[in-house]
Structure formats: C-alpha cells, structure tokens
C-alpha cells in the first residue's frame, strides 16, 4: 500500500536513496538489493553470457577453420555476419523495451538465441558456420535492454556510471571467452576427445550459461523500481505507450543518428577487434592457441575498468561542466583511441603490440562508456529507440569496418588496423554537431530563448492531446531531475519548476 500526499512519497522500501521517479541516486556495487542493484547484477551477467556466446568461435578458429574447411573469406564473412544480425535486433529490442519492459524483452531474446549456440556444435560447412554466427549475434541486442534497464533504475548523477559498469562488465564476455573457450577446449581434448570433436562439446558451456542467466532474469528481475510493466500498466501507474509514436520520436531525433555513427567507431571497433585479434596474434607472431587467446582476452578484459571508467568520467564531467563536458570528453577519448589504433597497426614486435593494444583498448572502451553517459538524455519517451539506434549503430560500424578492411586477403591485418584507426578519427568528428537548446553543444552555449528549458525539450515529444491525458508525467519528472546537466556554475540557481498537479495514484 502506498501513502501519497501531494507529491511527497514515502520511500521506506528502497535500500538506496532515490529521486522522485524512484530511481537510485547512488550506485553501490557490492549490494544486490532489490530492485536497483539486483537489476544491475542480472543485466550485466546476462549480457556477459551473450557476449561469451557470440565471440566463442574466434579463439577456436584455428581448429574450426580446419574442421569446416574455411577460407579467409569464409571466416571474414562469418565475422561480419556475427555482428550484423544485431543491427536491427538492437533497434527492435529498443522498441520492445519501451513497450514491454526490459525484463521480458531481454529474457525472450536470450532464450530464443540459446538454441543457435547449441546448434553450433553440429555445424559442418562454411554456410552452416556463417548461419550460426549470424543468429547467435542477435543476442548482442541485450545490450540495449541492459542500458535501458539501468537508465530506468538509476538517476542522472549515476546513470553514466551504472550504464558504463553494466555495459563494460557485459562486454567483458568478449574478452573472457577468449580465455574460457581455449581452456574448456583443452580440457575436453585432454580428457580424450579428438580436436574436431572437442571444440563442438566446448560450445555447450556458453549455451548453458546463457540459458541459466535468462532464467535468473525472469525469476528475480523487475522492470522499474515500482514493479513490472504489466502490473503497473494494469494499476494505471504506467501508461501503455503507442509503438508508432515512440518509434517516430526516436528516429526523428538527429542526435540519435550522430551517436549511432560515433558509437560505430568505438563499440564497432571493439567488436571488430574481438573477431580478429586472436587470429592476428596467432598467425603474425606464431603463438600457441592458448597464448594468442590470453593476449586477445586482455583486450576485452580491460572492460572491467575502462568502460565503467568512461561512464564515471562522463558523470564527473557532467557534474562539473554539464552536458558540454560530457560531449567534449567523449570526443577527446574516442579520437585518442583512433590514434592508438593507428600505432597498433604499425608496431612490429610482440611486446610492443600487446602494450599498444592495451592502451588502445582503454580509450576505445572508455569512449563506449562515455557515449552512454549522453544517450539517456537524448530522449525520455523514446529512450529505448535511441538506445537501440545507438547500439545498432555500433554493430553497423563493426560490419562496415570488417567488410572494408578485414574480409578476404585484400589488406594484411596490420594495414587494416591502421586504416581502421584513421576511420575512427574521422567518424568521431560529427560529435561537434550535437546541440541541446537547454545545455548547449561542443562549440555553442545553451540557447537564451525562453523556450529552451529541460521541460520544453522533453515535452516536445508529447502532443497536447497526450498531455491532456496526463501521459507525459514521467517525462516531466525526468526533465526536473536532469537539470543538473547544466553544470556546476548554474546548479545553485533555483529555477521555477513547472509544478505538476499530482496525478491520481
């Protein structure tokens, strides 16, 4: 039972301090308290499982390519296929989250892609290999539900951190799998299986992990701090929104498209490297499978701190300099990632390559975290669609990059890596074009027009008809909470808040 009195709410039931939307204003990593931190742990673990499955093949490619008689072109195509499925899946997932809630959306996707991972064990030709990698890649759409869930559970001061840690620890799967799969393979082979059978058995591990994580999400998770979508919609606390409106307001927001492009050149690059780096080290430096796997893993493992670091940095910059700080930091870090990518393609020795790769991984992954410090503010009504567009853009970047630079035998891998670095720098420039009337952009300050407030920005997504029905309440609360994106210099200024008449609860 809730006691409501003119807008002031009693919150004895939350373990963490919350704002007016019941989103947590603190992020406590070592707590598993429902609903906020529990949602965090469920989302990053399930996302981690999907990453492990999607990138389970690359570290075992030296075995698989002999078993299935693959050529370099086949391998390149499969790599492209593995990240292209998620392009539209992420957009669809964004919409599904807006409409059905992240819990059901992500668990459904995970349980529907788990069979494909099981079927990888029975692949027997280049075509079947490509198909299993393509469909397994759909599971990377859980990234969107992760970010959406975190943006629903955590408030502006910590949303970048929450998004960054959840995304980063999930992406960790791409690195962990480079260690796990060769290990599991080695174990099974030593027990007595032949190489060409051992890798097939090894794939059961990621598949089972994925299935179990989906069960956990369904059993223990909830969509919003106040409960699940279905229940809240029944009781009238959450309005059921229309797909066409949500979708329209998402895709007509140009900021979403710019972020989609730039995310393609931090996250897309990360996916590309996940696909090619183990083979790169194995072939170029004549390493053992195990060793190449460990080095490749360290790229993905940097995600433990690099992406969260990006999120934390975004929040810190946001606190001091507002949205402009978030944008400048994002551009700087991503451009530096491009510089180190160029260097990675140029160095010739093993130790230099490893060192440069690690530095490069920090910058590229931090840029991913920084991107999702900006995304939650682009739209409130269509948060899922914007997250989906940005996330999908990441995969498009991976597809395009692998198509141009890493397919077949046209460029050597080293040349491809250098060219990819140049492309990162070029594709980060559009960030200069992002402008929020209430907060400004990289070159321009906030507009001084009277209609340039947070409320105006977020209310522009609702028609007057919808406002009459009171559908915009959640956006209004969000607008109020997002005022701190003006930065510290105006934080002390008290602005007239458009007080809303309390809706009937």
């Amino acid at each position: 039972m809730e006691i409501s009195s003119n807008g002031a709410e009693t919150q004895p039931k939350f373990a963490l301090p919350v704002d007016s939307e019941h989103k947590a204003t603190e992020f406590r990593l070592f707590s598993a308290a429902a609903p906020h931190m529990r949602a965090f742990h469920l989302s990053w673990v399930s996302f981690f499982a999907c990453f492990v499955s999607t990138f389970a093949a690359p570290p075992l490619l030296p075995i698989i390519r002999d078993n299935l008689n693959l050529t370099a072109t086949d391998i390149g195509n499969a790599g492209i296929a593995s990240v292209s499925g998620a392009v539209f899946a992420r957009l669809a997932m964004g919409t599904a989250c807006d409409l059905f809630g992240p819990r059901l959306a992500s668990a459904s996707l995970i349980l529907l892609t788990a069979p494909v991972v099981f079927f990888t064990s029975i692949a027997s030709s280049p075509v079947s290999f490509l198909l299993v990698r393509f469909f397994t890649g759909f599971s990377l759409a859980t990234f969107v539900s992760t970010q959406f869930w975190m943006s629903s559970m955590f408030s502006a001061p910590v949303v970048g951190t929450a998004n960054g840690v959840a995304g980063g620890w999930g992406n960790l799967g791409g690195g962990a799998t480079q260690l796990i799969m060769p290990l599991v393979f080695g174990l099974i082979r030593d027990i007595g299986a032949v190489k060409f059978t051992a890798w097939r058995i090894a794939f059961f591990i990621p598949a089972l992990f994925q299935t179990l994580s989906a069960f956990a999400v369904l059993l223990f998770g909830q969509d919003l701090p106040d409960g699940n979508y279905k229940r809240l919609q029944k009781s009238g606390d959450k309005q059921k929104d229309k797909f066409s409106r949500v979708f329209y307001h998402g895709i007509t927001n140009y900021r979403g498209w710019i972020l989609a492009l730039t995310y393609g050149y931090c996250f897309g690059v990360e996916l590309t490297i996940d696909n090619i780096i183990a083979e790169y080290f194995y072939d170029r430096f004549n390493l053992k499978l195990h060793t190449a796997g460990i080095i490749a893993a360290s790229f993905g493992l940097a995600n433990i701190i690099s992406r969260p670091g990006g999120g934390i940095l975004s929040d810190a910059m946001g606190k001091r300099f507002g949205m402009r700080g978030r944008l400048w930091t994002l551009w700087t870090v991503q451009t530096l990632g491009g510089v180190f990518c160029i260097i990675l393609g140029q160095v010739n020795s093993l130790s230099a390559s490893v060192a440069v790769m690690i530095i490069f991984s920090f910058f590229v992954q931090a840029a991913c975290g920084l991107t999702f410090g900006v995304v939650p503010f682009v739209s409130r009504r269509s948060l899922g669609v914007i997250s989906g567009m940005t996330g999908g853009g990441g995969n498009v970047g991976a597809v395009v990059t692998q198509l141009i630079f890493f397919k077949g035998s046209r460029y050597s891998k080293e040349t491809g890596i250098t060219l990819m670095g140049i492309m990162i720098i070029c594709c980060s420039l559009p960030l200069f074009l992002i402008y929020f009337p209430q907060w400004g952009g990289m070159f321009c300050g906030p507009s001084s027009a009277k209609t340039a407030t947070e409320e105006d920005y977020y209310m522009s997504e609702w028609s007057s008809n919808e406002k009459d029905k009171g559908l915009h309440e959640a956006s209004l609360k969000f607008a109020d909470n997002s005022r701190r994106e003006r930065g510290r210099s105006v934080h002390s200024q008290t602005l007239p808040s458009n007080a809303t008449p309390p809706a009937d609860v």
Partner: protein
Amino acid sequence: MAARVLVLSSILTFSCFAEICYGAVSFSSLERTLVVTASHRQGLLLAGEDKITVAWGLNQSFPAGTDSTYRTIKVQLCYAPISQVDRAWRKTEDHLSKDKTCQFKIVEKPYSNTNETLEWTIERDVPTATFFVRAYALDQHNNKVAYGQNTDAKKTTNLFDIQAITGRHASLDIASVCFSAFSVVSLIGFFFAEKRKGGKGQQ
C-alpha cells in the same frame, strides 16, 4: 608531443632489432638431397582410417659424405598450393621460421644412412585438403640442412587428397536438439505462468 614521437620511434627501433635476431635459414638455400616417395590406396583418403606408406633415403647420385651433418630426419605432411589459396595461415614462405606449409609431423627419428619406410595412419586432426610429403634433414643443432619431397619443385605431381573426420557424433546432435527445445519450451512456460499470475489480478 615530442615525448610521444620519441616513444614511438624507440618502439619502432626496438622492433627492427627484434626482427634481425630471428633465424636466417631459408628454404631456397637447402639442397634437395633426399628422395621421398609416398604410396597409398586409390581414391580419397580418410583421416583416422587410411594409411600412407612413406619411404625416404639419400639420393645416391650425391657424393658420399653429403649426409655427414645429418642427425635427425623429420617427415611431414604438407599442404599443396591449391589448399593454400585464401588461407594465409598455410602460406609458403622462403624464410623457414615463418613457413607454414608443413604443419603435420609424420615421424621424427635419428638419421640413418639406409633407405627407410614407414606406414603411417593418417591422424584424426588432419583437415580436408590436398597434400604432399616432405622430409627435412636436421643437423645436431636442429637446423634444417637438406630436404626431399615426393612431388616436383612446383608441387604439382603426386599430390593426394585427404578427407577429414567431421568431429560430429550422434550423441552431440541429440543433446543439442534437446537443450534447444528445453530453452524454447521453458520460455513459453514462463509466459504462461506470467499470464496466469496477471489474470489473478495480483497486487
């Protein structure tokens, strides 16, 4: 900026030095003093089942004492050019330390001055490809000093095809199908359970 240039140039210089330290034996410097033959049954050979009979020995037209430095003989299964197309991990390089042509060892034993034969069952990790057989003679420091192969210099004659095992088993297939079905069925089960809970008008 200057510091970054300095770091970059020192990294590049060190990597150049590292290159020079690696071995210097090239394939074209080896003499073809060994005669190698490989015989097998007709048709496509199956890995794990069929056998190849390999015979090798010193080519008697070379003067005596040619093999004075040979200590070990290493016989290998090597990829024919057709199986190297679009597969950079099987590439032939003149620099022996970088050469990836021969990736499977048939036998490695101390060198003896007589002609030797071996019947070798094709191992189960050999992939589907076209192969030939090459023998390297190694000296006491394990450096390659001579070679012989059952095909010509252009690697066009006496090649044979091997078919790999699939690695699949009926039990694996069944397990895959069962677990997949379980995932999908349990998802449907969850949806039903949710609908029932919602239908009861739960608070």
